[in-house]
């Protein structure tokens, strides 16, 4: 699953570069939104879906039960050596 999510992330990084739209305006969405804008709006939606998949499939559940180390009560006690 880890590799699948890493692969999807890589795909999104490549899709983000969209060099094929570099000098294009068309197709104009609603007759006034250039492709450079609406493509990246869709990219944001794709990023949200990817993060949702991360949350669903790779959430670090083991961190949910972290408790303070004995001796750490509310404020900072570890101040280096």
């Amino acid at each position, binding site marked *: *699953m*880890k590799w699948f999510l890493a692969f999807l*992330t890589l795909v*999104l*990084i490549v899709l*983000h*570069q*969209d*060099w094929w*739209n*570099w*000098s*294009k*305006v068309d197709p*104009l969405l*609603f*007759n*006034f*939104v*250039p492709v*450079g*804008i609406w*493509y*990246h*709006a869709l*990219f*944001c*939606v794709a*990023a*949200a879906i*990817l*993060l*949702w998949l*991360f*949350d669903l499939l*790779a*959430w*670090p*559940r*083991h*961190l*949910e*039960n*972290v*408790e*303070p*180390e004995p001796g*750490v*009560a*509310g*404020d*900072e*006690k*570890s*101040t*280096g*050596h």
Partner: protein
Amino acid sequence: MQDWLPAIVIFIYLAVVLYIGVFAFRRGKGTGEDFFLASRSIGSIFFFLALFATNMTAFAILGSSGMSYKVGLGVFGMMATSSALVIPLTLFFIGTRLWAVGKRFGHMTQVAYFRDRYECSHIGTLIFLLTAAMLIPYLIISIDGGGTILSSLTNGKISYPIGGLIVALIVMATVFFGGLRGAVWVNVLQTLLFVAFGIVAFLAIGSHIQGGFPGVVNRMLTDPSNKLAPTDMGKMGTLLTRQRIPWQVFLSFMLIPLSSIMFPHMSIMCFTAKRVTAFRKTVVWYPLCIMAIWLPCCFLGALAPGQEQVRARVAAQSESFKQWLEEHGDVKAGPAAGLTPALQKVVAAGAKAKPKTPPALFAATASKILAEVRGGVEIKPVDVAGEMYAVKNPDFQSVWGRIATQNSDSVLLEMLKVYVPAGLAGILAAGIISAVMGSDCHQILGLSTMFTKDVFTYYGGSRTSEKSTVVMGRAFILIANGIAYLIALGRPPIFELAVTYAFSGFAALSPMMIAALFWKRSTKWAILANTMWVAAWVVFLVYAGQHYHPNDKVLGNIVTMNATGALSFLGFTSVVPMTLGAAILVVVVSLITPPPSRKTIDRYFGFVEEGAGRGAAAPLAAA
């Protein structure tokens, strides 16, 4: 009254902010952890809204539209959607781990974590000095932004110094009384306001523009003469594409969002969540909220050059142009003599970029226009700017474009003034001020937390009580904000330069954070090397910014100054060599120096691995 209406709306908003801050004060417990971290008690919704407000500065609204005005709507992809992917990923991996070590060991700052994780002391102090030095300019810029907005919206009825003072005082009072809890509560209102800003501004401006958005887009695309273009970089229609942004620059910006988690106030926010599950909703909603703010701002900014009225008003805001108009007393003294030093500098840079454009050509034409517009009566900067745009000579326009876009960050404010009724403009301006203040609150509180915990408490040892910690935190807020305000009054340009490079600096610090959280073998010498590497780069970048001019060669064709005056490395921006170099340094230095003691490594990785081993979800915490 029209001039005061936006100010009245903003004052109502500021009063609400102040009330929330004071109300939070009543809920405080008086302990250090409560003042600086709200007792690590922030729930999911508040955590998301506050983290977002912390991260979004005025740049998200004013800077994004201003940059789109100059280089087109590619800014949205370059800066916003790269952040929409990378920032939530850093929160998912780094933020959750930071939260866990904060909860486990009681850390309140990055420096406290590094000191304990690597058994070091003075290296932590160096990290404090570097991160504080890169953060302080933001305070100054925030106050500067607040003053500019209030002054601009009231057409100067509220002066810049008074506007800046008002914003500085409200921010100071909010965090002085309410601490982090006050900042977070205020952030909820602020995030809602500035997320709504983009959508409302888009609808309000779109409904008032002549011909609507389709009309403006059509005009920009069909303009063959390029006479509407604000710079000489191409035809007007290119603003609706990414043609004005080199691919190397676009790619470089994928690394910039790594800076987000390394900003001290952002990592401190990660410590405040009540439960790690607060990150779950945050990472999913983050990309959508970034889109909600940035998309309308970039779109409006890119379309503004197609509106002559807006374009002339933006040009009239150019500092060197205004100064020239004010000081150009005697036209008969000769054209070149009339140019002020500031304007001469811009003209000379333009002439260097386009050798055909002698400064004298610009000076003569500009002076002639001024004499004609003047006609013996009062000069209106907007009228002169309009005439400047009407000159057909492309060489003249190449220089004028540089001058006219100097203060392009004002483009959205000018659009509000032209197209939106005064009352609504006030509400929208409150949204912009929210973006300024939301992050400003956390920057100043972050600095205060770092100074109090990493210097005052650390070196004061056991003598420092809870009460004295909070007193010191509050005193620092007063002093730091006061100094920042005084510096902002002078408006020194070096701070703008520092802010420009701070993003690259914080991004290049991320390798050491990733190594500390996920790589057992990393060492304190590696984080020292990373810190010194970034410090040296920032000094070099600020030096180069002051001593080289656009299109200068710094090191053959490898290191050059690009057309906008930023350092370029084979076309890539400075963040690329800085971050890649830092990552290599961290790996190499770690491998040749001794790691921390086994006991410390076990403390920091043992509790994570134990948790993962208890049948939890697949651990991403590969050490």
